[in-house]
């Protein structure tokens, strides 16, 4: 059963993303509130996909992507960025760091679901 890690500091936004992901059959979801929390969970659990915000306290999403891509045990995991940052240079920076997909808020659940299914080949 595939498992997704949702990294988002806003509890309401996290709930909305989890709500959407529950519609992907067979996908279980784990939540983290920032990059450091996410790395802690990545150290103990195997994830198939990561969805992360950029602007978070303690460790932001871009630093998290950098850490994931430089870790041999994690670098294969697809990463979806979900952010309020809509500028093209922000998108390019995230993709250059190794994010697979960049989605801007406000999110449309079908778009998130479609990207997750595509990256997990479901």
């Amino acid at each position, binding site marked *: 059963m595939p498992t997704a890690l949702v990294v988002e500091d806003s509890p309401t936004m996290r709930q*909305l993303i989890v*709500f959407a992901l529950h519609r992907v059959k067979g996908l279980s979801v784990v939540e983290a509130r920032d990059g450091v929390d996410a790395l802690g969970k990545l150290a103990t659990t195997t994830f198939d996909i990561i969805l992360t915000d950029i602007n978070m306290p303690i460790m932001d999403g871009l630093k998290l992507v950098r850490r994931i891509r430089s870790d041999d045990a994690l670098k294969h995991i697809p990463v979806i960025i979900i952010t309020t940052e809509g500028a093209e240079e922000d998108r390019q920076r995230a993709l250059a760091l190794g994010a697979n997909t960049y989605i801007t808020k406000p999110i449309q659940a079908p778009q998130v679901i479609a990207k997750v299914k595509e990256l997990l080949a479901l």
Partner: protein
Amino acid sequence: MTTTPPSPSAPPKQAETPALAEHKREFIETFFKRGAELTEELIRENERLRQRVVELEASTRGGSEAPHDYAARLLEIERENNNLANLFVASQALHSAVELGELASVLVEILLNFVGAKTFAIQLVDEERGILRTLVSEGVERSDVPQPSIGNAALVGPMRGEALLPTGPLRARPVTAAPMVCVPLKLGEKIVGIIAVWELLLQKTELADVDFELFKLLGDHAGSALQSARLGAELKGRPLALWGAVDLV
């Protein structure tokens, strides 16, 4: 701009007994719990209908009927499902916040992440001074948000309970100008504050259907959620006027 110093004062209806306050609080909680249950039911029903459309689409595939009709219907249901999920999560978050600071954070999260507002403020009516005082802001320092008089020409409609929610493309405005979106926060018939938006996120050019519903939800419920949080503070021995919340956040 100078920050207005705190001015603690008794609310207009200070004679309310703790028992009445508790009764009001219980009523509000029950009311919104039922609302959340109804929303959940609607989402389940929507999911069931979505599945049914998928089944019907599959059963007619290859036949003479037009599958694009089902595809269009499926898209419409997906959109409706998405909107309901937004409203459900926003409503649940709004009414599960019991502390004023927590409630202020929830309001910011909803406006930023769900609506896509970039520069905005939530302001409460200070009846004593006849001005709007800023509870919380995003995209601009709280102390830089103008605190207009209640009689300000741009506020005539909102102070009568009429939301300013334009359709079509919107252009950012400076916070010194009248907001592009202005939604009254109601507590029954009374206007206790406003949501003022001056700029949307770069990728957001106009308000979507769900935004109108979200603003209606906030306009109708944020006032009572604030009142509920105020009553909570009062029950803990910290009586304050509703607008006095600005000094606690």
